[in-house]
């Protein structure tokens, strides 16, 4: 079930080979959806689902896909899965799907998915590919959640919509930092996370 190689496929993307921090894939979607925790988590789950299943499907098909048109085949598989996810969201969690707006659609062009299909699923059997998809999706979700945690806490003083900064702080002059809600602050938060991550993983530092 979980041989050494499979374990690596599942757990490496969580930190050492994190898709956002180390492989630098799929940044754009991490900006807009991280203003608060709830959409960030829904987005993360959607990406895990699409990534894991597209990895499995492409891995089953890997010997039959002609190399010339593999990008189009991959895009079709991804787009079909994203449509399913989108329809499920609209049906069961309409408010969040409104908040995520176009960003669910943009999972199609999320480079993590294309990147993992090209780098892993095209050369590996379905089970390791599934684990690789789940691992990379989790790595992505963790970062989204960390960024969203700081942005929601500092920007609106809430977590999951609940007030966590006590009222007496506001009474004594504390103010929410409205800048944290704006998209550019997601980039800067991400930059700081990378800084912290690399300070602890010296082998990732650039000369």
């Amino acid at each position, binding site marked *: 079930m979980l041989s050494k190689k499979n374990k690596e496929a599942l757990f490496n993307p969580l930190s050492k080979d994190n898709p956002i921090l180390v492989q630098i894939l799929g*940044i754009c979607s991490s900006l807009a959806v991280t203003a608060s925790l709830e959409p960030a988590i829904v987005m993360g789950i959607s990406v895990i689902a699409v990534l894991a299943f597209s990895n499995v499907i492409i891995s089953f098909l890997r010997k039959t896909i002609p190399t010339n048109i593999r990008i189009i085949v991959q895009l079709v598989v991804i787009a079909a899965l*994203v449509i399913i996810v989108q329809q499920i969201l609209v049906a069961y969690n309409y408010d969040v799907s409104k908040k995520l707006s176009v960003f669910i659609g943009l999972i199609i062009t999320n*480079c993590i998915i294309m990147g993992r299909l090209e780098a892993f699923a095209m050369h590996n059997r379905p089970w390791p590919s599934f684990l690789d998809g789940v691992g990379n999706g989790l790595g992505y979700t963790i970062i989204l959640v960390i960024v969203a945690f700081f942005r929601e806490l500092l920007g609106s003083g809430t977590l999951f919509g609940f007030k966590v900064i006590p009222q007496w702080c506001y009474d004594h002059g504390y103010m929410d930092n409205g800048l944290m809600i*704006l*998209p550019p602050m997601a980039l800067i938060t*991400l930059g700081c996370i990378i800084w912290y991550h*690399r300070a602890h993983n010296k082998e990732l530092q650039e000369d």
Partner: protein
Amino acid sequence: MEELNLFIKSIFIDNMIFAYFLGMCSFLAVGLAVTFMLVVTVPINYMLNKYVLQEGALTWLDPSLAGVDLSFLGLILFIAVIASATQLVEMAVEKFSPSLYASLGIFLPLIAVNCAILGAALFMQQRDFSSAWTATVYGAGSGIGWLLAIVGIAAIREKIAYSDIPKPLRGVGIAFIITGLMGIAFMSFLGIRLG
């Protein structure tokens, strides 16, 4: 004396990178390609959305189709249009400028998965523009904005190669922070309205 002056000037003052940003033509080329793609694909997708996908859009074909709503197929059609347009651009660049084609390499086909292009199509669908012309203008504007931003970021990154940055922050870390600061700078344009 004249030559010495020129020599010093060309080293320090008219520095190729610092003053003219040469060597960035590939960024410019990618920017132009993205703009072109947006101008081509946004109106096509607009037409698709208006005459095929929206609820009741198929009435021009047959009045009995008024209740058909194909908008869930939007994503797959948009990405197909974008992928085929990218293929066209790639073939054109390969034919007319092989050197540019070689220097762009893998980046040209990757435009197909550039979120800006699919994003423009999706925002277009959301904003409900009144005509194909408005959609084209929106595509062109978004493309030029993208070009400005990417050239700006590339310029700053070239300069940053010579600054003393804390080790763990080098490379991507600082690039993110710069991009964030540029995003904040671009926000100063918010609220501008002509006419």
